[in-house]
């Protein structure tokens, strides 16, 4: 017989938990839900745009009544649970409805706080929490003129903005002299106030409400100093209090909320709790992102999987007032032991402040330009050492070399502005998908609209759109990001398990780490294949079925299903005989396009798959090996002519590049790996946008790392200077091996270095001489089995079946 689960509170956190649970264990429970409100589950966050007339109540439904029916869930709307009988494991609603449970989930949310001043019960005084409140205000705006909003926090300002858009004359009353003091410091709050005043809102700062006046309806608000302003609607938005009355009455341990442990369990093991009603490690959260994380953990335990833990969240905030860009996270005020880095341009309406302590970001406030909010937030949550990028930090991630593509300012963009250049998706489409399909995460938006799903260069813009539409940070990936939906383990955890527990095959890894799927997916299998290859060189049997087609067929697939062939041209240097051989091959196989690539090589495009092995055989005989233009592996080493010919050349950059390519070709890396060598600082080989770039100077060779010329241009960081060609090779081998061992699959050196910090790389590759030689040693060891030309092998008949049809009819 199925177990019984009862949920009290049909709100965002509770229902999200059910959704997660249904994904994990669809048939485990008979579920009953009690909700005090007379609706299905809706997106409370979007009440603000409903009030502002930008959306309707129908637009913000997350799960309508059909969803409950489809999932076999009994829903009691409009029924408030007033009693929990823990001995009999039963809940009782005010109308007498009862339900018994094996497990009970409390998600009763919060109650808006009402200042108990005289007159607070007068008709016309309202809070801002649910659909009822919003409908009340929408009605009031039709017949009344002036509104007072008490409270200049997030909710108060969103209410004020909405009422003003409805045509009311609105005054915001705030106790302190800074608006949104829990999210903003004084300078940014002043900018915000000025901008809202520009839109016609009025403010009364440092005003303490003494009474609401009126006989049978609100007529005004009186303050401690005796002054009075007229009002026919008063909105109290001064804060919320976790709603734990029911839990407390049932004898559960409560402090400022229902106290739960890291599994979201209350002091009664049969009862779990999530959402705003909860107190976890002393904190009660009031934003959706942490609540969703709680829901995920709670579902894991309700499904009796028993391994997830909620360890608290760092939150960030946005204000959902159209046209205002504002971001705030962490400890943005700082203290005596922290420092502030500030950028201020009041004329342009821009203010940015970062609070730094021990070289880590502790908090951030951004006003007017929030494009880098999610980047700072990531740096903050990952506790990244920012000492290397400190000077450039305030100018944003884009300043770390990027010029990216396209625009940066989201608020100013028209709905028709194209956000995703790869898939042609515009702003209006994305915003519409977020609201009508109830999307919450970047992944959701990618799946539904394809925006940011290809090259990813518009990810920052899409995150901003999510944030400005939904208001909070839940668009961002959680701090601990699992490899894919087959597992909850991260890339790093999986790699550690592979080496610590001597896991030697993909099935072993999946069994040991309890993969949820029988044979993984197209995301985790290629990653696991690389991690195993890197951990057990020579021993691990490569699994071609876990490789993307390009790496399996050793050629790049084209849009029409044909392939391209790029032979290795060492250091970009060739000769007449090689060119003749390439020309012959192009003739023999009717290659439609022959193109010089951006990597100093020749691309033969439009080759039929069946022709590949024969063509490779011909190229092999002419002395060519695979160029790995298709691999997460060493690509090209670009060179310039250098001191052999060039009048400015200081060293033989061509020979250096060829030596490097001869040493490193064939190695598999987390993502593609490109190198270049220039013969002088004029840098004609563009070495400073490569994963590893070498620039010759009179006294030796400068080594540069972490460059990227692709989606997001990033200039390299200077690693060190060395004197001899041998040293260049040693450092190259060590750097590549460190990246191979510690970079995450599909993470290029640029984001990898930004994640671990340049200092760390310097310490491992430059400062620690013995460590460097060990890294280089491991690199050479793995090269022993890596430098077997895959083309020659296949020309000899290996993987024959891959290249020919199983059967031909007609």
């Amino acid at each position, binding site marked *: 017989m199925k177990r019984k689960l009862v949920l009290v509170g049909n709100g965002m956190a509770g229902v999200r938990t059910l959704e997660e649970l249904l994904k994990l264990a669809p048939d485990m429970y008979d579920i009953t839900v009690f909700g005090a409100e007379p609706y299905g589950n809706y997106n409370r966050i979007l009440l603000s745009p409903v009030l502002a007339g930008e959306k309707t109540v129908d637009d913000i439904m997350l799960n309508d009544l059909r969803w409950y029916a489809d999932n076999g869930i009994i829903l009691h709307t409009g029924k408030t649970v007033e009693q929990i009988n823990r001995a009999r494991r039963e809940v009782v609603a005010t109308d007498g409805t009862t339900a018994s449970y094996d497990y009970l989930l409390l998600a009763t949310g919060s109650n808006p706080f009402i200042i108990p001043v005289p007159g607070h019960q007068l008709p016309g005084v309202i809070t801002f929490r649910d659909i009822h409140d919003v409908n009340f205000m929408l009605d009031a705006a039709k017949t009344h003129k002036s509104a007072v909003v008490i409270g200049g926090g997030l909710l108060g300002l969103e209410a004020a903005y909405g009422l003003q858009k409805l045509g009311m004359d609105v005054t915001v009353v705030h106790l302190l002299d800074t608006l949104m003091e829990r999210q903003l410091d004084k300078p940014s709050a002043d900018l915000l106030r000025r901008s809202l005043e520009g839109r016609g809102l009025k403010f009364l700062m440092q005003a303490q409400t003494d009474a609401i006046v009126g006989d049978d309806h609100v007529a005004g608000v009186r303050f401690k100093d005796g002054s009075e302003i007229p009002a026919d609607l008063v909105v109290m938005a001064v804060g919320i209090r976790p709603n734990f009355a029911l839990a407390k009455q049932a004898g559960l341990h409560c402090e400022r909320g229902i106290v739960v442990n890291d599994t979201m369990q209350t002091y009664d093991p049969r009862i779990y709790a999530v959402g705003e009603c909860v107190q976890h490690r002393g904190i009660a959260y009031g934003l959706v992102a942490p609540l969703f994380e709680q829901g995920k953990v709670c579902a894991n335990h309700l499904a009796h999987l028993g391994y997830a833990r909620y360890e608290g969240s760092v939150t960030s905030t946005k204000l959902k007032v159209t046209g205002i860009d504002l971001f705030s996270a962490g400890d943005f005020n700082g203290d005596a032991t922290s420092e502030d880095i500030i950028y201020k341009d009041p004329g342009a309406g821009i203010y940015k402040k970062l609070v730094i302590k021990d070289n880590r970001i502790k908090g951030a406030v951004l006003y007017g330009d929030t494009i880098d909010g999610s980047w700072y937030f990531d740096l903050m949550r990952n506790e990244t050492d920012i000492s290397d990028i400190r000077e450039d930090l305030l100018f944003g991630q884009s300043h770390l070399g990027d010029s990216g593509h396209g625009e940066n300012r989201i608020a100013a963009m028209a709905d028709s502005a194209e956000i995703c250049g790869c898939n042609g998706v515009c702003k209006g489409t994305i915003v519409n998908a977020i609201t009508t399909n109830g999307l919450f995460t970047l992944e959701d938006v990618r799946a539904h609209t394809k925006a940011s799903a290809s090259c990813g260069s518009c990810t920052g813009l899409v995150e901003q759109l999510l944030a400005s539409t939904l208001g909070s940070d839940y668009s961002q990936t959680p701090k601990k990001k699992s490899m894919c939906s087959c597992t909850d383990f991260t890339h790093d955890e999986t790699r550690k398990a592979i080496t610590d527990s001597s896991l030697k095959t993909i099935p072993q890894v999946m069994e040991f780490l309890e993969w949820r799927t029988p044979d993984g997916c197209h995301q985790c299998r290629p990653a696991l294949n690389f991690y195993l290859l890197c951990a057990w060189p020579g021993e691990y049997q490569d699994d071609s079925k876990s490789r993307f087609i390009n790496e399996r067929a050793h050629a790049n697939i084209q849009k029409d299903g044909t392939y391209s062939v790029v032979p290795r041209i060492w250091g970009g240097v060739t000769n007449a005989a090689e060119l003749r051989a390439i020309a012959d091959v192009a003739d023999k196989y009717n290659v439609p396009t022959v193109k010089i690539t951006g990597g100093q090589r020749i691309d033969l495009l439009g080759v039929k798959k069946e022709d590949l092995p024969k063509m490779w055989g011909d190229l092999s005989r002419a002395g060519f090996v695979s160029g790995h233009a298709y691999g997460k592996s060493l690509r090209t080493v670009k060179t310039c002519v250098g001191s052999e010919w060039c009048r400015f050349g200081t060293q033989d950059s061509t020979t250096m590049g060829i030596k490097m390519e001869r040493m490193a070709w064939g190695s598999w890396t987390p993502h593609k790996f490109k190198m270049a060598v220039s013969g002088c600082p004029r840098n004609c080989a563009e070495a400073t946008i490569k994963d590893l770039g070498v620039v010759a100077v009179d006294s030796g060779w400068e080594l540069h790392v972490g460059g990227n010329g692709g989606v997001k241009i990033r200039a390299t960081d200077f690693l060190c200077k060395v004197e001899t060609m041998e040293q260049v090779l040693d450092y190259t081998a060590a750097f590549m091996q460190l990246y191979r061992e510690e970079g995450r699959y599909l993470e290029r050196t640029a984001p990898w270095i930004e994640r671990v910090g340049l200092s760390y790389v310097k310490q491992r590759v430059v400062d620690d001489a013995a460590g460097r030689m060990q890294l280089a040693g491991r690199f050479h060891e793995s090269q022993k089995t890596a430098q077997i030309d895959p083309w020659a092998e296949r020309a000899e008949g290996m993987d024959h079946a891959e290249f020919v049809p*199983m059967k031909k*009819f*007609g």
Partner: protein
Amino acid sequence: MSEWFEIGAMTDIPRLGSRVVRTAHGDIAVFRTATDTIFALTDKCPHKGGPLSQGIVFGEYVACPLHNWVIELESGEAVAPDKGCAHRHPVKVEDGLVFLKVRSAVVNIADYSVVAQA
């Protein structure tokens, strides 16, 4: 009229892999899962015609090699939120041999007999 045609041994198709059957009316991709279930789909992704036979196979799905749509092998349907369907073809395995049911017009019998003799 549709008929069953033998296309080779099941072991000719790698586990978690696929082979192509070439017909007068285009390629058909034949897939083999880890548990030796065989499926056949027209080798054309409903998105932009990518060759599904070249994708990574997992569970009873294949990821298209061009833009990563995931297609359900059983039905040929793209996994939501993507929408579209790759035509599926009946297949059966008897005594280790795989048979594919296709319209006979698709198969030029004269040529087929040549291949079969070879």
